[in-house]
Structures are given as C-alpha cells and as structure tokens.
C-alpha cells in the first residue's frame, strides 16, 4: 500500500476503535463464551464444569423449551403480518393528504414511545377480565352477536386464559405500530408521482395502483421492517415478565424464549443451560433472516440501486 493508503488505514481504524473494542469485548467474547458455557454445567458461584452436549440433549427433550419456542413462533407469526398490515394501511390512509394529517400521525406514533414497563402495566389493566376497557368495549358487541346468532360468546379473561393470553400480548404490541407507520409514510412519499399519473392515464384504480406501484416500490422498507420485527420477536421479554410477575402465564402460555432463558440463568442457577438456549436462539435468528432474505429477493424491487 502507498503511504497515503497506510495513513488512511490507520486513521480509519483509529476512528472506529471504539466500535472495535466494543465488538471484541461486548460481542465476540460473549458469543464465544456463551458457546463454551452452553457445553458446561455452570451455576455462577462455582466454576463451570465441561459436560459436552448434555445441555443440548436435555434441551431437545425439554417440553418446556419447545413450548417457549411455540409461544415465540406463534407471537411472531401473528404479530408481524398484523403489524405490517395495520401500519401499512394507516400509512396509506395518511398518504391521502387529508386534513389533520400531522395530528393523526402524532396520535399513531405516541404509543410507540411508551416505556415497556408502562405498556405492560397499562395493558394488564386494559385486558382485565371484568374491569378492563377491552372487554367492556367487546361486551355490547358480543351481546349483539349472541342475540343475532344465538351464540354464547363472552369476552375472555385475557391474561388468565391460556387460549387468549398471547393474543393479549399481541394486541399490546400492535398498539406500538406508530413507529412503522412513520417509516412507511416516509417511504410512500418517495414514490415518484409520475408513475401514478401514467397509471391513471391507463385507467388504473386505487387498488390496482397500490398493488402494482406502491407495494413494489416500498417493498425494501417492508422487508427491512419484517427482519427487524423478526429479530425483535425473539427478544420479547419485558412485557410478559411484568404482566406475569416473572412467571409463565396460565398453562405456560406466556413463556417466551427470552423468558425461559432468563429463568434458567437467574432463577434456576442453570447458566450453562441458559447459554445453550441462547446459542439455539442465535442460530434460529440467523436462519430465519437468511430465509427471509432469500424469499424476498424474488419480490423486492430496488429502484436505481
């Protein structure tokens, strides 16, 4: 390399040295150590003892782990598409340039600022079986349906009912879609007008324009959002922890992967086992990101890149 290149290399590395230090100490070291501990029996106040694949074997036959995985997958499978649908719809509606748009945008965005603990406490109250707002709004609706169809529907005691607890958590999360709404709105506003105009000249209606112009153009934004949501859904911890007081919920329906990892590390004195869960979690996130990328390559349209 030339002297200039050396100097640039040195300067570049100097500037990113905080990141390099952080990467080594707070990223590489923990990942490697986690893999090592995952193959040990480690109870934190005694030295770790190497036990090979014991933790992984136990994990494979651990019905509670699979339940936690199921709960996490359930949450991701429903909250991500619903989240995309709602936030995208709201963004499209906002894009109509109606009066009071700024106010609406603020209203949708504010809930995403609420700290997780407050969110959990508030929604625990909202979802209360007898006194919560959700059920008291649902009651007249279900009453109407019951009188029309002779059914016996009743609003569930969300967080105490194993069949509905996760839906309570999903609704809690959906309240925070405002973040995505803003992102999508910005993306929508970048769509070149002339595309819409030429489509209209060809006689395209609203749905046709949306399907063939809007969605393809903002597909990279959707993809990015889905990936971030996917990674986030594997880290769901604070809201169910606060709502259940650190527990599992009825019939373990609110036990998520991060919760089970935390319980093993900090309640059951099983840090080695917790690290094994962590390693499996890591591989799942990588695999899912890879799959999502491959799937989207066919559908994403990058303009001008």
């Amino acid at each position, binding site marked *: 390399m030339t002297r200039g290149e050396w100097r640039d290399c040195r300067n570049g590395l100097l500037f990113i040295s905080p990141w390099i230090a952080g990467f080594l100490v707070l990223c590489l070291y923990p990942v490697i150590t986690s893999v090592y501990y995952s193959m040990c*029996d480690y*109870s*934190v*106040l*005694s030295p770790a*003892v190497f036990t090979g694949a014991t933790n992984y074997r*136990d994990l494979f*036959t*651990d*019905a*509670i782990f699979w339940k936690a995985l199921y709960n996490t997958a359930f949450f991701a499978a429903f909250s991500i598409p619903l989240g995309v649908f709602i936030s995208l719809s709201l963004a499209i509606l906002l894009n109509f340039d109606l009066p009071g748009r700024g106010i609406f945008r603020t209203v949708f965005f504010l809930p995403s600022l609420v700290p997780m603990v407050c969110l959990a406490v508030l929604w625990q109250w909202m979802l209360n*079986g*007898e006194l919560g707002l959700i059920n008291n709004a649902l009651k007249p609706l279900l009453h109407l349906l019951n009188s029309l169809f002779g059914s016996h529907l009743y609003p569930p*005691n969300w967080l*105490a009912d*194993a069949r509905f607890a996760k839906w309570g958590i999903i609704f809690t999360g959906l309240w925070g879609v405002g973040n995505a709404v803003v992102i999508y709105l910005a993306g929508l506003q970048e769509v070149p007008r002339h595309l819409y105009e030429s489509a209209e000249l060809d006689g395209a209606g609203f749905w046709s324009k949306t399907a063939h112009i809007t969605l393809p153009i903002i597909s990279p934004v959707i993809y990015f959002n889905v990936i971030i949501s996917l990674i986030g859904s594997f880290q769901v911890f604070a809201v169910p922890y606060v709502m259940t*007081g*650190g*527990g*599992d919920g*009825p*019939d*373990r329906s609110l036990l998520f992967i991060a919760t089970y990892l935390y319980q093993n590390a*900090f*309640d*059951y*004195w099983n840090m080695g086992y917790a690290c094994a869960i962590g390693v499996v979690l890591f591989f799942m996130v990588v695999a899912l990101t890879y799959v999502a990328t491959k799937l989207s390559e066919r559908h994403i349209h990058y303009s001008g890149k």
Partner: protein
Amino acid sequence: MAWLALAACQRGGAPTGGKVEIEYWDKWTGFEEEAMRAVVEDFNASQSRIHVNFSSVSQINHKLMLATAGGVPPDVSGVYANMIPAYSENNALTPLDSMAAAAHITREQYIDIYWRMCMHRDHLWALPSTPTSIALIWNKKLFREAGLNPDQPPRSIAELEEFNEKLVKRRPDGSLQSIGFLPESPDWWDPMWGYRFGGALWNGRDAITVNSPENIAAYQWIASYPRRFGAHDLMAFRDGFGNFASPQNPFFNGRVAMEMDGVWVYNYIKNYAPAGFEWGVAPFPSSDPVRLKDVAIVDLDALVIPAVAKHPAEAFAFIRYVNSRKPMEKLCLGQRKFSPLLACSPDFLRNHPNPWIGEFLALAKSPNACYAPPLATYTQFANDMSDAVNRIWTGKSSARAALDEVQLRQQAVFDRSLERWRRLAPVLTREWSAQ
C-alpha cells in the same frame, strides 16, 4: 450533570462514625414490615457497633439471586425456607454452624420442624424469623345457615365433601353464588395436597415421588371439583373473587365457607372482614383422620447470610438478636404469628390478639407436620406442580397424566442437580466445614 452524578452515587457499606452498616433485605410490606422495623430499631438502639439498614424488597427470590450472583448481596436477607436448599447447594450462603454454636443456639431451643427447615446437607444455613402453620378455617355463620354445627369442623376429606354439598348455594340461573370449599382459593400450596392423603413428594434421598398412588388420589380429588361443578362455572365464579387483602376476599364476603390458610389470616380478618365475623380454626382434614392425624403444612421465613456478604459477623449478631426470646416474641406478635422458640413467655400466648394462636402453635408441633421438600430444584418443581394443577383444574389433563408428566420432567431436572451436587460436594463441604 454533576448534581445528577452526586445524587445518583451509591451509598456504600463504609463505616459511619465507627459503626458498621449492614444491609438487610426482606420481603414484607404493610404491618409485617412495621413489625420487623420495630425490632431493627430496637437492635440499632441497643448497641453502637452495628447499624442495620432495612429495605423492603419485592420478588425477593429473584432479587437476592441476582445480587448474590453479581457479588453484591445484602449482609442479611429474609428468605422463604424452601429457597435454602437451592441457595446452599449453589454456594450462595454462609454456613452458620460455628457461629450458632459459639452463640449457644441449638436445635433443642426451637420447635423441631423449623430447625430442620434451616438445615440442609448437614449444615445450618439460616435461623428462623417468623413461622407459620396452615389450618382449616371456616365461617361459623354460614355453617349455622346451612344447618351444620358451627363448632364442629369436618374431620376427614369425605366429611369435608358432605359439608360442601350442604353449603353450596346456586343462583336462579344455575351459576354458583357460594361454595363450601374451593381447593384453589387460595392456591399457594399446590404441590402439597398429597400429604393430606398420605403421599410424599420425594423419598428423602434421590427420587421424586409425585405420581405415587396417594398423590394421584389427592389430585383426583382436586379434579373432581371442575367435574362436579363445571369447569366454566368455576372459572367464572373465581373471576369474581376480589383481592386477598380486601373486603372482596371470597372468604370474607361469604363466597367460600371454608378455606385452607395460615396463621396470618387473623390480621386480614381484622382489617377486611365484616364486623362480627365468626370464624373457627382446626387441623385441615386428611383422607384418614386416624392414621393421618393433624397433617399440618408449615412454612417458615428465615434469615440467611449470603456467601459473599461483606459483614458476616455483624450480620450474625443481628440474626442472633432476632432469635432471642424478647425480640422474637415482639416480632411474631407484631406479625400476629406464634414464636418458633420452644421457650415462650406466658404473657405472649395469653395476650396474643389472635384468638386461635394456640391451635396454630399446636399444629406446628404435630408429629405429622410437613413442609415443602428440600430440593435444590424446588423453584422449578413448584412451577411445574402449579402448572399441572392448573391443567387439572381446567380439565385439560387428568390427574394421573399431569402428575406423570411432572414426575418425568422433575426427576430429570433433579437428577441433574444431584449430579452437580456430587461433583461439587467434596470442595464445598470442605469449605463449609472450615468456616
């Protein structure tokens, strides 16, 4: 920024004016917290060497483990006795054998079962703070209304069910208005029902025995409730229960005529039950009242010194103070409980506000008194049992199937902890004996 930094600075355990400051965490709030605070103040005033800082900490089992694992535990902590096996086997506690011996504190001074709960693997890990025992409590007025003798509680499970049938009241639309007995109200002793049927949860050595025939019988009895009264009806009935510490407590507002509860219930009755509430206390019935007489579940709040505490000697001085007769009686009186010490001032029981304190005390001394199995994996075990009972209760699983599942899983978890113990025991026991 400087102000913020100053405001946020930690106060450390540095001596102030020659005094050693020690941290003491405990789980209590309300009147129970006040009772302990009074004793702490007495201790601080009684000598000038040690100052105890008392904090009321919620979710103490989580917080204590985190603090101990992180190397910053309090000097003294209150724990539930069922935490002792896990903490001791994982090297999180300071053994108290030599300090207790030096202070002439021995097993004979205590109600035996409580001393046993403080021992694990042949070492002493804790000393009692406040004991409890669990009994049958019934609402005399509801008994009278149902034509039952208000001073004669059921003596066997079969009799309990007979009374139950007489005490059930339904509304015109068929929904439950009140019931005689509901096993899940409250639901704090889910794992322990088997003891009332002669079952045990482990064999005392290395095997979990959750699915023994007696235990299955016990949980089949629990399962009979949703079968007899309708799972959905019972859920709706339970949803209407208010807070334990409020007038809407189902036992206080007449929804449930009999319940299983502990010695503290007196204080809640005094604060929240309607005026003139008449109640009785008796041993909770078992399946065979002759063979299984006075099967009482007991529980214990105990004081421990975490392993890496900064001031163990001073911490023990405080624990020793709490365990001497007068302070202990003051504490137990304040919490409306009896004392774990055998030697008791005559005034203590006589002047005790709880009219049934003698009954609770007798139950703690019963030869059939039992407590949660001292497993190092008790947290997982209790979680699993609660979950199993929940499934039995909602009809998702039969008693046998649920218990079989718990047996399989908890035996495996317990086996791992036994392996860990076998590996660590040589080193740990050597360390403990040296202290």
